């Protein structure tokens, strides 16, 4: 195997790689062993520490909290998708009086931490007489934040489409709404699907912030459990953490599957999604093509790769 960083290894390099591999294994084992040893010394493996997890009642409560987490996630996901479309279309509007306010709102919600938004809804609004359930604070905060991030992703997807698509749409007599609905959005959605699902994973992880504003979700229950008999703090963190990791891995798996399917889809032939169209990423195009792309498409959008980053 050859890569940018190394050539096909010769006999010397193979030996060196083996030694480095052994050293890596030793270091990782040493770290894990130390943590395991501390666990052993402080009695974390003691049956009394795991005792609470033998009650079916505890598991019923975990299931109920999981339901709360998923409930907040599901509603927030649907609402943020809807808001994302609305804001994306608003940002692409021809009318400045729509475009400018929508841009300001999107940038504002993207810049404010989700937790501060939740606190604004939960602790801030009662001051002006609006009492809000923690559930709604979590859902609405996640909705406006992820909605703005998704709007950015969709906008980038639409702007990365070749201009000819839009022009052809107008040429066959479609109106603005028709061009957007029938031509631009379907292509942009298909291209940005992996980014959208990746953002949904972030939404799922961010429901755990509800813990801080006393929404009874999984992590909140973990905190409750940790004061039970035997004080299973680390144990409940691991059990609950396992549940989160499995849920997020399922969603990430969907994202990866969609990405693979998108790449193979014949409907997207000839169109490189925004990340692939990035002039700096030249997968299988020649330098000449990249230069042509830069001259033609011109604009480089620095937000590529941005939306997926978060948490």
């Amino acid at each position, binding site marked *: 195997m050859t890569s940018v960083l190394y050539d096909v290894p010769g006999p010397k390099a193979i030996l060196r790689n083996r030694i480095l591999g052994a050293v890596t294994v030793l270091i990782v084992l040493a770290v894990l062993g130390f943590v395991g040893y501390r666990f052993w010394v402080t009695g974390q493996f003691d049956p009394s520490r795991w005792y609470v997890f033998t009650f079916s009642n505890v598991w019923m409560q975990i299931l109920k909290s999981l339901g709360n987490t998923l409930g907040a996630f599901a509603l927030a996901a649907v609402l943020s998708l809807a808001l994302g479309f609305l804001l994306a279309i608003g940002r692409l509007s021809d009318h400045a009086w729509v475009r400018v306010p929508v841009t300001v709102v999107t940038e504002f919600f993207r810049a404010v931490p989700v937790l*501060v938004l939740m606190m604004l809804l939960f602790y801030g609004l009662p*001051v002006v007489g609006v009492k809000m359930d923690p559930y709604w604070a979590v859902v609405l905060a996640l909705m406006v934040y992820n909605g703005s991030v998704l709007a950015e992703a969709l906008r980038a997807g639409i702007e990365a489409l070749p201009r000819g698509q839009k022009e052809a749409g107008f040429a066959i007599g479609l109106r603005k709404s028709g061009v957007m609905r029938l031509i631009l959005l379907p292509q942009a959605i298909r291209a940005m699907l992996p980014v959208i699902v990746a953002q949904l994973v972030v939404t799922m*992880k961010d429901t755990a912030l509800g813990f801080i504003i006393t929404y009874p979700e999984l992590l909140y229950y973990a905190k409750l459990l940790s004061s039970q008999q035997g004080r299973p*703090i*680390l144990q409940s963190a691991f059990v609950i953490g396992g549940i989160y990791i499995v849920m997020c891995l399922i969603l990430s798996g969907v994202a990866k599957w969609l990405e693979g399917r998108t790449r193979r889809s014949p409907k997207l032939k000839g169109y490189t999604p925004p990340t692939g169209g990035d002039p700096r990423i030249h997968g299988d195009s020649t330098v000449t093509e990249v230069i042509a792309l830069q001259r033609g498409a011109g604009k480089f959008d620095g937000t590529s790769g941005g939306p997926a980053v978060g948490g």
Partner: protein
Amino acid sequence: MGVIVDNMDLWGVALRNTLILFFAGGLLALVLGIIVGAMRVSPIPVARAFGTVYVNLIRNTPLTLVFFIFVFGYPQLGLPKLDTTVLGILAIGIYTATYVAEVLRAGINTVPVGQAEAARAIGLPFGQVMTLVVLPQAFRSVVPPMMSVFIALLKNTTVAAGFSVLELGAIRANLSERGENALAVLLWVAAIFVALVLLLSWAQRALENKWRIAR
């Protein structure tokens, strides 16, 4: 404005702690992220496997849970006592390191293999292939997404509010005790974050323009 001027002491401490979390966490994330990123692109399969497991495990864990494990779990292990701020730095650094590692790996992958092959073909040794050909190209494509990671890191420092670190996210609780208006306090906090994020995205654009690929 009164909310800020009357409580200058608390705002000062909160802003300082937020910046400490940001810079110390960012430094830890960079160091750890470079190590893990290097593992993920190394020719050693074992190192690649460990890097992949680490990244996938931590990236699919909510930051709040990482904080939970460090702030509540660490004291259970009977190790030397650490301040919650230090534990918070560890949590946020270890979490962000996975994003740094992914950005670095993606940056290296943007360099076409032909570049390195050509460099080897004209007889450059490994060090020069890296410093003259591969890294300068990778660096340019790493800067903008890396800044996005740091913007996310800055916003994530607020999670420490739930774990008794007095930073900007936690200042509402402290000021409510002094009888201040929670809505006004939180709006100020939001305004400070918008300002800080605008500053960082301005830096992002400036750096991006500075190192833009010239062809």
